[in-house]
């Protein structure tokens, strides 16, 4: 589905969105799960989307990212499923 295959990360390391720190930038490789994907996609988050982490809330709270002009909060559980790569 919404996966970019045959494209390995330039840094050779695949991270999840939850690994990123505040201010970190990344490009989305793959969204986990099927149903929820559509909500992420409707907010403009899909393979190839570049995003920046605005804040990471403590106690396994949500991760807030900036996509284009908007800020989106993503629950930690979901953020752990989203695979990203750090841009070169």
């Amino acid at each position, binding site marked *: 589905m919404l996966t970019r295959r045959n494209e390995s990360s330039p840094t050779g390391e695949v991270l999840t969105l939850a690994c990123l720190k505040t201010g970190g930038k990344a490009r989305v490789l793959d969204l986990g799960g099927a149903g929820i994907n559509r909500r992420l996609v409707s*907010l403009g988050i*899909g393979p190839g989307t570049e995003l920046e982490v605005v*804040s990471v*809330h403590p106690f396994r*709270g*949500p991760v807030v990212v900036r996509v284009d002009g908007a800020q*989106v909060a993503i*629950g930690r559980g*979901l953020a752990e499923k989203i695979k990203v790569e750090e841009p070169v």
Partner: protein
Amino acid sequence: MAIALVGQPNVGKSSVLSRLTGVNTVVSNYPGTSLELERGELTIEGRKYEIIDTPGIYSLALAQNEETIVPELLFDPAVDLVIDVIDAANLARNLVLTLELVDLDKPMIVLLNQIDRVRAGGYWIDHQALSRMLGCPVFPFSALTGEGVMEVLNLLQASSKRGFSRFRPHQDIAGQITCVVGSDCTGKCLRCLSQNRETGCFDKALWARHERARTLAERVLIKQTAAQVLWLTRVEKFIDKPWQGSLVLLGLVLLGFKALLSFTGWMEGLVANTFAPVQEILSRGIGMVVPPGFWNQVLSKGVPEGILLPFALVMPAMLMVSLLMSLLEDTGLLARYAVVMERFGGLFGVSGQAVIPLALGFGCRTPAIVATRILPGTGQRFIVMTLLSIVIPCAATVGMITSVISSFHAYASVIIVTTLVVFVVLGRLMKSRYGEKSELVYELPPLRIPLGCNLWSKVKTRCTGFLTEVLPLLVIMSVGVRIVIDSGVLERLHALEELTRFLFGIPAEAFAAVLVTVVQRYLAPLILLNLTLSPREATIAISMVALSLPCLPVMVMIWREAGVKTLGKIMGMGFLVSFAIGILLNLLLPC
């Protein structure tokens, strides 16, 4: 002539509507809840247009549950014109919906709202180029400054005779998205894919539309000058840091709570003084009309109480809370509470927004029940309504309970701990039964300065509903309660003395006070104060009173908001909790 106003959530659609229609002609809807179409009227030079406001929706193809009324409305041939409101500061994502709307092949006007924000960011949108590409009029617009309002109204006026057909967008702009499902596919992904949701085609087309929107946005978005940092953006940066943000939000809750308390306190005296003669006249009038006897007594007391109680106690609180809620929504702060409190809400199976009705409940629970509308899902609303009704003590309850505690030297710490334990246990129990497990994906709107007219129309909508729907119910229930009191049922409870002593360790009169909480919150503590109770008895009785049913207006509000079945469930649970607490405390507390 019918015009549909469509846009994604958080684009400031309701402010656009207020600007276009002037003041008060159309009411704005509660985000995420009352997903109904709001209809209003727009008159330009004597010609009337029906203007239909739709709930914010990210995508027509992804519409779920109640959201499907939006595509249904748009497929209706009765709609002559679609006004697409776009958040200009977030062009690429908003154009996705625009591309779907193009597929409808209906006359359309695009408004680039919040254009002032884009300009402040040092950008300019070439709206003429966008208009050429889409094939329909595109206006830069700002609900804040009023930019673009006259242009739109002029255009509508000029086209009112000739019709809107020349605003039909180019079909090829979105038509390049090809569908990969069977041969009978028309290529219009919005329509054919809504039937084939489970195939990969749907997602592909969805993402293709996103990429198309992104290239469109890149072509019309022009960097002009250096970005100028708005002071609001600075505030946003500060608030969006987890720790300091949480502190600011907490401070704002306390401030709002303080405002609520002082406003209601001030109004209560004012209204009570003004209305005292009215109550007297009503009571006498009814006393003269109805023949003396049982019904005379019941009606002459019950009706005025039912009418005046809401004006003196509930109405001021409703006004203040409506204003606070509208402010939270329109500034974009509400979404920030949802994010900061997500973990906390997760403990009870509710989302972070739940903290708002719960916090308001400490002030007055009646408007807090209305505030549960901000929660997604009926399960979550039920959990929060139940916690509000049974556990959360409102300001009046706290005041009265503390006075009873001090006069009997009851164990305050036991009562506080009991309340906390009940809150956690009840919340956890309800979570496993009614909680909804959903992953948080939530857009944080930028902070905004709310429009005065928008706030006013929201407050008005919320309070009008209260007067027309809640007031009659209150009068009926107030009369019912009078019947119970005057029929002398409560005095007969003496026969239960042995039972109440055995179960709860309290005398029957104290148990009557527990039952009376249903009737009137002032009555239960009054009954208790007239008894002679030991500290142990008082502790048990107060805990049972505090953790049972809410006051009458709250119950009426639940009835109105969630139906009589839900009210029955909550009342049943209230008694269950109250009795369980009584029995447990009787067993645990040393004699």
